[in-house]
């Protein structure tokens, strides 16, 4: 693009000012405050329009107001330019009215062809130049370098170089941008490692609230647990109360039934008692009658029975003994009657015996000698003695009989063995004597004599025995009589108080009295039984009364009172229907206890439930939490966006460096060589993004920071020019507006600069603004006829 002319109607201090610049190097030499900057602003304004807006915080006017003509002149202008394609355009703007007209070379209005900006009108410059205003401004307008003024200026310049190098724009500092993002992330969001940044504060508050919420939720849950427990206990209580009601009703029915039963039982008992009372009376009567028998004792009866028995026996024995005595007497008498008397015997046998003796003394001791007691007889005799001894000791009535039998056996055995052992005699004088004696005695022979003798002896023995027996029998009778007397005495003694005690009645009496005594005792036993029975019935009745009194709730009732009370109850009919259910007092008590315990537990729970969690507190915490979470989300989103911006920025910066810096360095190298007359030939950038210049002299790479101020200026200029070249690669060659670019240069540098600009002017239009006459002179010297001088109005 080349500007071919302008007509400023009114713009800032410039009014009614026309000019036609040259296609190459144009120099505007004018003192300060003469409108150089205003002209630059006009060109910008014509291309990109002027923005409105409010007065800035530092008091600066918005552009539309800043350049309003002071004297109320038309606030308008015209600019003409030609593009590299040869197309020409004429732009007319009225800044006051806000109108813009564009005409092509055929004077056709074409402003409608372009996209319209509300405030600045058609955006034809973006289209024709391929740059927005900001890019245009920062690219084609080179202001004064400040490096020589102070250290701050030098640093600013180095920064601009660095910016250009890293971002392609001197005003865009990557490090500052990254720093801004990081600072915003730290200050406005937080990094999670601090406690005072917004996100960290929010997170801490969220954490605290969440803990508080959890705590309250636990309390609430415990409250609900207690509530549930109370609810369950209420259900259980209702169940138990229902059970209690049913049991009490059942108990009541059972009470009624029981009372009826008690009443019936008591009636039965009373009836029983009455019956027993009557029985007792009868027994009493009978006892009275049989009282006499009461004096008897079983021992007495036994003794009496024994006495009576003994008496009977003794009587029997007496009778027997009497009979035996008579027999014996008769027997003895009989025997005595049949027995020769001893005198007769002796008379009859004396001689015989004498004869026998005579005979015997001659035969010597022999077979007819002595005859000892045979042993069986001896034994029997001993036995007899033993029995007699026993009888004497024991007085048993049978013992005498046994003695007699033993005696008889003794005698029998003795006689038997003794009689069989008689010796055989020979005839001798003695024998003759004997025979004589025998015959005189009337015996035919000795045998007969012996027989007679034996017989007589036997008889005599028998008589003796009989006599003995008789004696014994008499003795026995005496004994019996004595025993009888003793018994009678005993009887009398025993039955002294027994009237009608007749021993002679004997067993019958005993029997009668025994029966009477038994009867008496039976009556006594009956009486006792009756009394016991009555006592038992009375006890039972007492128990029933107590039970009834308990059931009626009136303890301590007497029987009569109880009967009265039972009679007073309605519906007390005996129900014989069997009950399947029962309930005991213990069951009711247990249930009551359980109900009471449950009520206490429920009261405790209810009291605990009074401490209900404060209403609405959870909601408030949740609401605050929601708000904080929303805030956190926003902060996190912001943080994420800041991080993303940083990430993309670094990526693009890398890309820019990769794509842009080599090209920039290449372009820069050209300009550096020109500006420094070959002192520095190459510009490069290391990984640390340092700009380095190579010096052919030293073959060293020198960082820009180590260069002199003037050289830094040159580097900056070279970089700016290189940047413009790179910008143009996209489209239209751009004019350059250089405002005092060599203000810090020495003359040699100025000349080099102009030489470089002269070469540059071949490819683009250059507007060089200066207030130094020396520069004008040098420019004229270097440029020669190529130079076009543009005057500013006074």
């Amino acid at each position, binding site marked *: 693009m080349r500007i071919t002319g302008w007509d400023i109607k009114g713009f800032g201090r410039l009014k009614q000012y026309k000019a036609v610049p040259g296609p190459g190097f144009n120099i505007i030499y004018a003192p300060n405050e003469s409108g150089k900057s205003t002209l630059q602003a006009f060109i910008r304004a014509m291309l990109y329009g002027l923005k409105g807006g409010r007065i800035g915080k530092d008091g600066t006017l918005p552009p539309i107001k800043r350049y309003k003509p002071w004297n109320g002149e038309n606030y308008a202008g015209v600019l003409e330019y030609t593009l590299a394609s040869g197309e020409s355009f004429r732009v007319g703007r009225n800044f006051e009215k806000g109108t813009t007209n564009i005409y092509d070379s055929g004077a056709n209005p074409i402003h409608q062809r372009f996209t319209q900006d509300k405030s600045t009108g058609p955006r034809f410059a973006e289209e024709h130049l391929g740059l927005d205003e900001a890019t245009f401004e920062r690219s084609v307008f080179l202001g004064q370098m400040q490096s020589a003024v102070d250290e701050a200026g030098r640093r600013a310049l180095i920064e601009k170089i660095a910016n250009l190098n890293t971002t392609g724009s001197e005003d865009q500092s990557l490090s500052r941008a990254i720093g*801004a993002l990081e600072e915003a992330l730290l200050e406005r969001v937080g990094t999670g490692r601090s406690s005072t940044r917004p996100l960290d504060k929010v997170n801490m508050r969220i954490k605290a609230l969440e803990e508080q919420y959890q705590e309250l939720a636990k309390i609430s849950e415990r409250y609900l647990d207690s509530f549930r427990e109370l609810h369950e206990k209420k259900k259980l209580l209702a169940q138990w109360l229902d059970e209690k009601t049913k049991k009490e009703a059942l108990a009541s029915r059972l009470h009624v039934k029981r009372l009826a039963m008690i009443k019936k039982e008591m009636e039965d008992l009373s009836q029983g008692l009455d019956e027993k009372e009557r029985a007792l009376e009868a027994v009493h009567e009978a006892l009275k009658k049989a009282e006499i028998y009461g004096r008897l004792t079983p021992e007495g009866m036994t003794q009496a029975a024994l006495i009576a028995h003994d008496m009977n026996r003794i009587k029997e024995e007496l009778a027997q003994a009497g009979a035996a005595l008579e027999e014996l007497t008769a027997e003895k008498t009989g025997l005595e009657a049949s027995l020769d008397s001893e005198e007769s015997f002796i008379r009859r046998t004396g001689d015989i015996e004498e004869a026998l003796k005579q005979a015997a003394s001659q035969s010597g001791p022999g077979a007819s000698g002595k005859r000892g007691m045979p042993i069986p007889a001896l034994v029997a005799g001993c036995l007899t003695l033993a029995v007699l001894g026993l009888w004497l000791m024991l007085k048993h009535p049978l013992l005498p009989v046994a003695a007699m039998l033993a005696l008889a056996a003794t005698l029998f055995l003795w006689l038997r063995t003794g009689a069989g052992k008689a010796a055989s005699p020979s005839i001798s004088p003695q024998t003759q004597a004997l025979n004589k004696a025998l015959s005189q005695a009337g015996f035919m022979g000795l045998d007969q004599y012996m027989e007679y003798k034996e017989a007589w002896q036997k008889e005599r023995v028998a008589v003796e025995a009989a006599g003995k027996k008789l004696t014994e029998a008499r003795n026995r009778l005496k004994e019996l009589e004595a025993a009888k007397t003793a018994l009678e005495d005993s009887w009398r003694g025993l039955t002294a108080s027994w009237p009608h005690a007749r021993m002679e009645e004997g067993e019958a009496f005993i029997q009668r009295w025994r029966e009477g005594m038994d009867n008496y005792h039976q009556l006594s036993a009956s009486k006792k039984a009756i009394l016991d029975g009555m006592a038992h019935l009375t006890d039972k009745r007492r128990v029933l009364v107590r039970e009834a009194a308990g059931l009626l709730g009136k303890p301590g009732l007497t029987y009569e009172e109880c009967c009265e009370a039972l009679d007073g109850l309605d519906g007390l009919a005996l129900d014989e229907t069997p009950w399947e259910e029962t309930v005991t007092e213990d069951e009711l008590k247990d249930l009551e206890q359980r109900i009471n315990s449950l009520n206490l537990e429920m009261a405790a729970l209810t009291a605990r439930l009074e401490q209900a969690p404060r209403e609405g507190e959870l909601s408030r915490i949740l609401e605050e939490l929601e708000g904080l979470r929303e805030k956190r989300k926003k902060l996190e989103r912001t943080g994420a966006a800041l991080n993303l911006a940083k990430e993309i920025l670094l990526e693009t910066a890398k890309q820019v460096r990769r794509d842009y810096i080599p090209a920039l360095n290449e372009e820069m190298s050209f300009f550096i060589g020109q500006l420094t007359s070959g002192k520095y030939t190459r510009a490069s950038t290391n990984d640390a993004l340092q700009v380095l210049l190579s010096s052919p002299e030293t073959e060293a790479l020198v960082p820009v920071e180590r260069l002199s101020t003037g050289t830094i200026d040159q580097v900056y200029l070279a970089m700016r020019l290189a940047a413009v070249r790179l910008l143009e690669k996209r489209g239209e060659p751009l004019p350059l507006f250089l405002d005092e670019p060599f203000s810090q240069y020495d003359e040699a540098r100025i000349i080099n600069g102009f030489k470089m600009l002269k070469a540059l002017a071949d490819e683009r239009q250059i507007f060089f603004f200066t207030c130094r006459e020396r520069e004008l002179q040098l420019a004229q010297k270097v440029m020669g006829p190529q130079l076009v001088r543009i005057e500013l109005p006074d």
Partner: protein
Amino acid sequence: MKSLRFIHCADIHLEAPFREQGTGSYAETRRMDIRKAFLHILKTARDQKADFLLISGDLFEQDLTTKRTMEWLSMVLSDVDAPIFIIPGNHDPFVKNSWYALWDWPPNVHILTPQNPQYILEEQRVFIYGLGFSAYKQGKPDLSHVPPPRKDYLNILMVHGTLDMDFSGEAYQPVTSRELAALNYDYYALGHFHQPRAEDSTTSMIYPGSPEPLGFDESGIHGAYGVTVLREPSGLRLKAERFETAQRVYHPVSLDVTGLKSLEEVKMKLLGVLEGLNPQRDLVQITLKGRTAMDLDEKLLTALFSEDWLFLQIRNETQKAFDLEALTRDPAVKGSFVRAINKRLEALDEAMKMEGDPKALAEEKERLELALSFGLEALCNGKIEGWSEE
């Protein structure tokens, strides 16, 4: 069976917390609004002599409901002469300490739990089966346990859950309309979604929505449904009509301030948004969007406008104004940065056209746009200013 009328509502959310940060007792006022909306439903049931009332879940917030709330609820439910059927939702599930289990509900209230899922109204010949929640999250229900519909009865299935949504990871008893239709019930009383859903007034699968809206994502008019059941020769005919119950209406508004040159212009725009709205009824949240060079203080703006409003909030989500079109042509890093972001934005737009997660993609887009603003501001100004979350 004579004609019947019943009321169907759901998602009342008694004692719900309110996310929007209102001032003073705003949240309490809103909770009272919920109660009023619910009372409106009960009054409608009484006035229309409804045969019964269905509440398809989320009647209250289990964790936030107190004994006092239950006392109030008991009192108002017992005033309704008709039977009331409730299924537990994911906010009031039938868990260990559920108020459904702990409370002595009035005799006309029937809670359909997993243990007792059904009820029969013999006189009206109505069979109701409920599929509620017994945990805060619950997977797909086993529909094979749902008994077949009874002949000559009005068969109603109450379900709290999501309908026709992607099942992967879905934790709120997901079902499909197809599955429900296969059960051949006459009416499906649904609950869970807060926005009402019914294809038309004759559809048998209805989400009545929350009777009182609960957030700015629940704009529009809210209410419940009254359903009339007519017996016709061809069968049962159901007609469902929605009635309003909401005390408030949420108005989320997005206002693009791009191009506005002054605060006054912004205020005028705000006034325009508010025109026609009722400060006592309408809850307004205006989000300023777009790009502007103005420093808009949302707190200041909110304070300026919210004086008579129960809730009015102005949020500033504007971004700095940049001539992005021109910047894309900048050869320097600024231009590269803008181009890089644009490239990513274009990729996102493409992804949005494909089957991506729209929410995640929208968030990523927002993040990129914000990154763009921050990056440009950092590059241009060397600092980020003009916003603060505090």
